[in-house]
């Protein structure tokens, strides 16, 4: 009997090889990273169950789910607003089915759908990150409008994305995370890389930590 293995493949496996893209000289203005090895579950409160969902989340991760577009970092999970009374639970590590443990947490208060395979996670940072993102996103990323922790359900290239600002990178520049649909990932990566090319891009692959 043949051996069956279930290797995870990235939708970006043909899009890039880690290394320098675009402008080759000088410091890269943009760090573009594919973040792998994560689990992502869509949580949608059932009618009249918002408070119970919040209570369950608080108990599980120590934080309330975001009530407005924001990304909240809790114990072992980041809760990212995706719409009214709904959010993503993002956790490190890839498992075949992340829903059952969450079903225990939320009981019948929420509807849950695994989206770990449905999204690709890309992180952008660097000294020119806002200039590059301004070419693809209509969201105002100014510090006063989109501080650390802010999130947006928005569109890039006519495609829905979830964008949020995590803690600033070690070099002090802002860092943005972007969840994009898996099927669009190859296309959007090219769009992002084009937008960033004039600043020089350092492209990497990193597991979610």
């Amino acid at each position, binding site marked *: 009997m043949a051996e069956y293995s279930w290797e995870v493949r990235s939708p970006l496996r043909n899009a890039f090889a880690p290394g320098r893209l675009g402008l080759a000289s000088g410091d890269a203005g943009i760090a573009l990273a594919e973040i792998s090895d994560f689990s992502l579950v869509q949580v949608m409160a059932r009618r*009249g*169950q918002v408070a119970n969902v919040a209570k369950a989340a608080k108990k599980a991760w120590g934080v309330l789910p975001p009530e407005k577009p924001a990304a909240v970092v809790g114990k072992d999970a980041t809760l990212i607003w995706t*719409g009214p009374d709904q959010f993503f639970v993002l956790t490190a590590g890839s498992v075949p089915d992340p829903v059952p443990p969450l079903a225990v947490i939320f009981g019948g208060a929420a509807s849950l759908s695994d989206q770990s395979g449905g999204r690709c996670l890309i992180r952008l940072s660097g000294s020119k990150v806002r200039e590059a993102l301004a070419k693809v996103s*209509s969201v105002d990323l100014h510090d006063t409008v989109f501080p650390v922790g802010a999130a947006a*359900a*928005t569109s890039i290239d*006519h495609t*829905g994305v979830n964008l949020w600002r995590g803690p600033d990178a070690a070099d002090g520049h802002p860092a943005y995370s972007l969840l994009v649909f898996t099927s669009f990932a190859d296309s959007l990566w090219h769009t992002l890389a084009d937008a960033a090319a004039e600043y020089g891009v350092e492209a990497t692959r990193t597991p979610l930590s």
Partner: protein
Amino acid sequence: MRIACPFCGERELGEFTYLGDAAPKRPMAFAADGAEQPEAQDLFFDYVYLRDNVAGDMTERWYHGGGCRSWLTVTRNTTTHEIKAVHAAPGAGAQKRTKAGATS
């Protein structure tokens, strides 16, 4: 045009799609056992086809499909494109069950 989504804040037109006048209400033209009422076709004809086509302030259905996927009720002037009010559809999010046919 920019629409202030009650959940996401102000966003550009490209994130939204338009359905049309929010005034027509889907008729309740069937009895509990599914039997069609005699006036069902007239009521649905009016609902599906006839429009006030307002020149002025009009309440409309817009969908924030490029954002939070909420349906919105927008009051907008069709002669100036000025937006006067934006509300979430009654069933957006996990609001408690609302009476059938109710709108905001």
